[in-house]
């Protein structure tokens, strides 16, 4: 049996501990539960705007999230629910932002995946792909100025996002400054509807790393153990001062671009290849094979995740929504400017 890199499926990775694996797996489970709920809320008209899910990408996202430590910097993208949770995001905050709750991070000013806590190192993406990489790089530059040499930064991008000028400028700049930045490229085969063949012409996106003078490697994005091992190494190398690390995870987006997209254009054959495996199922098999969990434990974890999500939704739904009456309509932080605007 082959993996997504056309390698024979390897022997179970031995460097990954049971604790690390089960921890990451539970973030994957919680992420899947959160996203299934988001999809159902969207279908029933409870969420305005888009709902963007990371089904099929939980393994690489969770693996990255668990490798980050408090004080690190994380700039996730649209399919990083698992990594966001592992980095400390609470499920209720996911629903608050999707509902546009007044208690949400943005109080209805921005929605869905555009969320974070930038002051705590958890950056809030804008829709322009590639533009977050230099922001995370700049945050690391600031840490260097402040004498914090322990922290690393991580950010993710898709196959399509690597085609932007912003991606190129930021990776090059991070390499010039030798910043401790881990760039995870999740190649899920499609950028919205555009396949890899219309996106880039190189053999493997990881080959680009050498051109920037950064270390690069590919990983089977459907295999949690592989992701944990590779991202463990990449984050360690970044922490140890080896400069930016690029990791390309290969998998298949198991959902539409957003919930409004039925992904009719996806080559159905891909689902039968190693790329099309559901990383959650692969991880479950791994847990059972290695006897780190049995069916009963898995069922209990699933139930716990579901309960946590139901409680979060119930709480978030009771909160007041964005209100034009209490909105300040002031985009300025400077008191001198804001005061003048607010008086008017």
């Amino acid at each position, binding site marked *: 049996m082959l993996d997504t890199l056309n390698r024979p499926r390897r022997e179970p990775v031995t460097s990954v501990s049971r604790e690390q694996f089960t921890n990451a797996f539970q973030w994957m489970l919680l992420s899947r539960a959160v996203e299934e709920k988001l999809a159902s809320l969207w279908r029933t008209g409870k969420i305005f705007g888009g709902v963007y899910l990371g089904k099929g990408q939980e393994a690489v996202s969770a693996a990255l999230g668990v490798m980050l430590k408090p004080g690190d910097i994380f700039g996730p993208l649209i399919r990083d629910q698992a990594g966001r949770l592992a980095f400390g995001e609470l499920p209720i905050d996911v629903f608050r932002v999707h509902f546009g709750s007044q208690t949400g*991070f*943005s109080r209805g*000013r*921005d929605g869905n995946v*555009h969320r*974070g*806590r*930038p*002051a705590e190192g958890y*950056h*809030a993406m*804008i*829709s*322009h792909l590639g*533009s*977050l*990489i*230099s*922001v*995370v*790089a*700049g*945050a*690391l*530059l*600031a*840490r260097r*100025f*402040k004498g914090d040499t322990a922290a690393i930064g991580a950010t993710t991008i898709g196959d399509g996002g690597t085609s932007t*000028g*912003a991606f190129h*400028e*930021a990776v*090059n*700049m991070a390499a*010039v400054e030798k910043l401790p930045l881990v760039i995870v490229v999740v190649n899920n085969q499609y950028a919205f509807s555009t396949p890899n063949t219309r996106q880039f012409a190189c053999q493997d996106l990881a080959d680009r790393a050498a051109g920037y003078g950064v270390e690069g490697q590919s990983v089977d994005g459907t295999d949690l153990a592989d992701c944990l091992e590779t991202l463990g190494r990449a984050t360690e190398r970044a922490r140890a001062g080896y400069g930016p690390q690029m990791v390309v995870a290969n998998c298949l987006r198991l959902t539409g671009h957003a919930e409004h997209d039925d992904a009719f254009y996806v080559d159905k054959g891909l689902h039968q290849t190693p790329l099309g495996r559901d990383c959650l199922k692969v991880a479950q098999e791994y847990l059972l094979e290695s006897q780190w969990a049995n069916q009963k434990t898995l069922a209990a974890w699933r139930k716990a995740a579901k309960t946590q999500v139901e409680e979060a939704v119930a709480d978030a739904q009771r909160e007041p929504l964005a209100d034009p009456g209490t909105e300040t309509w002031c*985009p*300025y*932080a*400077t*008191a*001198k*400017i804001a005061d*003048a*605007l607010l008086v008017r």
Partner: protein
Amino acid sequence: MSITYLDAIREAQEKALRENPRVYIYGQDIATFGGAFKATRNLAKEFPGRVLDAPISEDAMVGSAIGAAIEGMRPIVEMQFADFSAVAFNQIVNQAATLYWRTQVACPITIRLPSGANPGSGPFHSQTLESIYSHFPGLVVMTPATVEDAYTMLLEAVEVDDPVIFCEHKFLYNRLKSDALPQSNLPFNTARIARAGRDISIVTYSSMVHEALSAADLLHKENIEAEVVDLRCIKPLDIKTVLESVARTARLLCVGESWPWGGVNSEVITSVVTRGFQLLDAPPQRINSKDTPIPFHPNLWGAHKPSSQAIAAAARRQCAW
């Protein structure tokens, strides 16, 4: 001691670096070389590690400044020419300008835009982009016209908690001189009466303040007393000072070096007409650069931008109304 407008910009940056450990400067050729215009001359030597050469990557320059600002730094980004900020447009208008609104985390970055034309600079080293940046909520746009303002407003820009587009005019760099480095006491978001008059308000900013003052000298000989209002800061706009001036003169002529369509002049005229129509004895007028790319040859360039003669001619027509 003679201080030029350019010296004032360098001195302000030196003071900011000296007094605030959170300040650093990032831009192309600014370290050893001291900047294309020498606005950072010797600063890299004086402040090792805090004046950094950037790759030719305007998007990453601004993006990284945003990330650093989120972490509490006060970055100054030098664009080599205002024109090149177009490459960073996305980071400026979508990332920096929206950050506070979206996240309640301030984005205190200063982006210096060496703006405006010098003879022979051509279409891509001559632009004045204050009108376009002013369009975006969340940005502060400063357009200093004097040595004093270049100094104090740049220091204020670094202190401001929002992204500041600092439009410094290249034509003024070495042409404006002051005896010392006097500090203006006027807050950055307040317009200034550059010359008092009773017959017409000429509202302008940046380099055009000096063309307007020359025009006022010409008009004075004809017994027309023009009041020249220097806006200083385009966004936020101090429309109160403009309205007070128009209340005195009943005539409004707006002058700006940027292109006419939807610009600062249009905004000032709209604000005056909608709030103070009854103050006006004549229809407001505006003078901008011609609505074409900026020409290279000095013969064409001289005719492309507003001149003191053109301003005076427009003022005469206004006053004859």
